C-alpha cells in the first residue's frame, strides 16, 4: 500500500486542541507521516510521535544568515528547509548536509538555475512546492501560474532532482487528500507516476531518515 507524507504543516497558533484536530485530520485524509513547522514539544500531544517529525523553515538571502541560524539550532534532529531568492545561497544550501529542503514558489522558481538543480540532485537535497502556492496564490493569473509551474516543475523533474509537494497548511481548510493532490498536479503537466513520487517516495526518504534520528 502506498504511504503518503505531508512534510509541511505550518501551525501558527498555540492552541493544543486545534493542532490535535489538524494532525488527526491529516491522518484521516490518508497521510502516514507529517512534519510540523513549529517549535512545539510534541510530547504535549496525544499522537504517535513516530508519525510526526519537527521542522524549521529558514528564510535567508545570504549564506551568512543561513549559517547564523544553523548555529542556533540545538540538535540535528530537526528537518531544515531554506527559502531564498538568491541563487548562490540556494547552491550553498543544496550542497550543505543539514539542509534537506529548498522551498520554491512562483517568485524564486523563475530564477532557479540548472546548476542548482544538478547540485541538489547530487547531494540528495529536495525542492519543495507548497499546495498553498498552487491553489491559493492570487498574485498571478491562473494561466500564468499554470504555464510557469508546468515549465519549471518539469525542468526540475527532468534534471532528476527530487521534488516534493507539501500542504503548508495552518488550518484544516488548506489540507487536501493525497490522491486529490496527485490529480491536481496533472493540471501542471506532471505525470501521475512523478506526482506519486512527489507526495510519497521522496518525502518518505526524508521522513524515514529523520524519524530514525529522532528515535535515537
Amino acid at each position, binding site marked *: 500500500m502506498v504511504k503518503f507524507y505531508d512534510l509541511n504543516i505550518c501551525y501558527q497558533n498555540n492552541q493544543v486542541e486545534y493542532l490535535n484536530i489538524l494532525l488527526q485530520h491529516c491522518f484521516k485524509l490518508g497521510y502516514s507521516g507529517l512534519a510540523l513547522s513549529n517549535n512545539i514539544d510534541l510530547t504535549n500531544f496525544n499522537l504517535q510521535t513516530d508519525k510526526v517529525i519537527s521542522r524549521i523553515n529558514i528564510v535567508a538571502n545570504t549564506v551568512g544568515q543561513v549559517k547564523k541560524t544553523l548555529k542556533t539550532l540545538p540538535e540535528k534532529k530537526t528537518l531544515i528547509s531554506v527559502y531564498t531568492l538568491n541563487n548562490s545561497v540556494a547552491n550553498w544550501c543544496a550542497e550543505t548536509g543539514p539542509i534537506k529542503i529548498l522551498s520554491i514558489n512562483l517568485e524564486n522558481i523563475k530564477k532557479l538555475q540548472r546548476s542548482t538543480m544538478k547540485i541538489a540532485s547530487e547531494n540528495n537535497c529536495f525542492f519543495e512546492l507548497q499546495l498553498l502556492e498552487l*491553489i491559493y496564490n492570487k498574485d498571478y493569473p491562473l494561466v500564468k501560474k499554470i504555464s510557469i509551474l508546468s515549465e519549471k516543475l518539469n525542468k526540475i523533474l527532468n534534471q532528476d532532482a527530487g521534488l516534493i509537494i507539501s500542504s503548508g497548511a495552518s488550518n484544516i481548510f488548506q489540507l487536501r*487528500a493525497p490522491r486529490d493532490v496527485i490529480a491536481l498536479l496533472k493540471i501542471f503537466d506532471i505525470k501521475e507516476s512523478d506526482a506519486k513520487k512527489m507526495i510519497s517516495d521522496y518525502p518518505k526518504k526524508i521522513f524515514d531518515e529523520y524519524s530514525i534520528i529522532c528515535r535515537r
Partner: protein
Amino acid sequence: MKKRKRYIVFQVLYEGSLYEKDVLKIISNQLIRLFGEVGASKTHFWLHLYNEDSKKGLIECRHNTVQIIRATLASIFEFANQPLTFYTVGVSGTMKAAKRKYLNT
C-alpha cells in the same frame, strides 16, 4: 458501446450553509475555468445528490475523467469570501456501491 461511468463521493468543509444549487454552481464554474467548456463537456459531469446536513455529495462522470473532477474539487478554496474545501471520499463504479460504501445508505 456503453460508456463506463464512475461515481465520486465528496465531502465539503464549509462553516456555513451550502445548498445543492451552490455546490453545482461552484463545481461547474471551476471545471470550466480549469478545463474550458470543451474539456468540461467531455467529463459528462453530473451532481446526483448533495446532503446539506452531512455536506456529502455524489458526482457522476466518465471513467477516464475522474482525475479531472478530482483536480477540480481540490482546486476549489473559497465561496462567498469564506474558506471552502472539497475532499474526495471515494470513487466507485456503480452508484449503488458508492452509496453503500461511502454514504452509508
